[in-house]
């Protein structure tokens, strides 16, 4: 049977997918293009889709969307061997640099993204609303790309590449407080925001290595916030002063 192989490119790096279900392709929008290649890097089995759906995505009904989500997890695992990762966060481009808001789902990443957008207007662009791709380079820098997994709002701009300048870890609270985190305090909260479901200990070690590189490259702030525009202004002024 002929395989339909599609490719996702992030800079000069690519991942090739073989899709099992016809409807899955539409979720990728413009992020995948068909290739003539007959071999793929990633193809998920029905058993893997079932496992991901049972353990991670408990509310998905459409089989094609389940496959799209299982491919995200599989991509997250796959990238770890190449000093790359899918990371759970909202990434934006401002001042020629990328900034990422991260937090467990429902903590206000998109809210912060929209507040920044209201304040900065054309000065900023959303790179990816939910799962940007991070790339650790040999010179110690970390670069951010968009990925097909952009969250329910589908915020994202294919083709943008920007150096990561900082990460803001969000926590809901009754007042707005921002503080720079010591790298060691950021380890566990950031480790758990990698999109991965490691299949072996090598993948775990690769993920640890990538996080070490990220924490060596950029500052991390913790923003306890009420989710209002004032918290976005506070953050913006804080990171502006750090430039």
């Amino acid at each position, binding site marked *: 049977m002929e395989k339909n192989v599609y490719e996702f490119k992030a800079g000069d790096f690519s991942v090739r997918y073989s899709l099992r279900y016809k409807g899955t392709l539409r979720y990728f929008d413009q992020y995948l293009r068909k290739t003539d290649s007959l071999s793929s890097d990633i193809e998920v089995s029905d058993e893997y889709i079932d496992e991901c759906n049972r353990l991670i995505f408990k509310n998905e009904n459409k089989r094609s969307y389940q496959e799209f989500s299982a491919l995200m997890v599989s991509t997250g695992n796959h990238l770890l061997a190449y000093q790359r990762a899918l990371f759970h966060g909202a990434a934006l481009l401002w001042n020629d640099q990328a900034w990422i808001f991260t937090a467990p789902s429902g903590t206000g990443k998109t809210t912060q993204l929209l507040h920044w957008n209201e304040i900065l207007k054309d000065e900023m662009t959303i790179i990816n609303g939910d799962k940007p791709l991070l790339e650790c380079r040999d010179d110690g820098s970390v670069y951010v790309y968009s990925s097909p997994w952009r969250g329910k709002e589908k915020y994202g701009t294919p083709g943008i590449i920007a150096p990561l300048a900082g990460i803001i870890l969000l926590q809901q609270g009754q007042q707005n407080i921002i503080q720079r985190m010591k790298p*060691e305090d950021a380890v*566990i909260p950031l480790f*758990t925001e990698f999109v991965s479901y490691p299949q072996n*200990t090598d993948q775990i*070690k690769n993920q640890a290595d990538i996080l070490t590189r990220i924490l060596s490259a950029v500052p991390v702030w913790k923003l306890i916030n009420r989710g209002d525009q004032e918290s976005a202004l506070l953050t913006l002024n804080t990171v502006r002063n750090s430039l």
Partner: protein
Amino acid sequence: MKDWRIQPGIALVEIKGIYLLVSDQHARKYCPYILRINEIGAFIFRQMEEQKDIHEIQEFLKKQYDIPEDCDLNQDISHFINLLSDKKCLIQEETE
């Protein structure tokens, strides 16, 4: 006598001085995804990975941390082993 082995699929990693035991998808069926341990715990875990017994671990610990010879660390090591065992990071086996 009780013997133990490390649950397959658990990796010890160090990130910015923080030591974590992290479970892969197989180990996660039994163990927490992440368990933070301290530097000495990480040292003991590494010895366990090399299948050292509790007496050997005690000797290595004393050497590594300049602990006096007459100090008995068996209870502390056993406590750590029991903690990992409770979290299913170790599989205890009865031996003769």
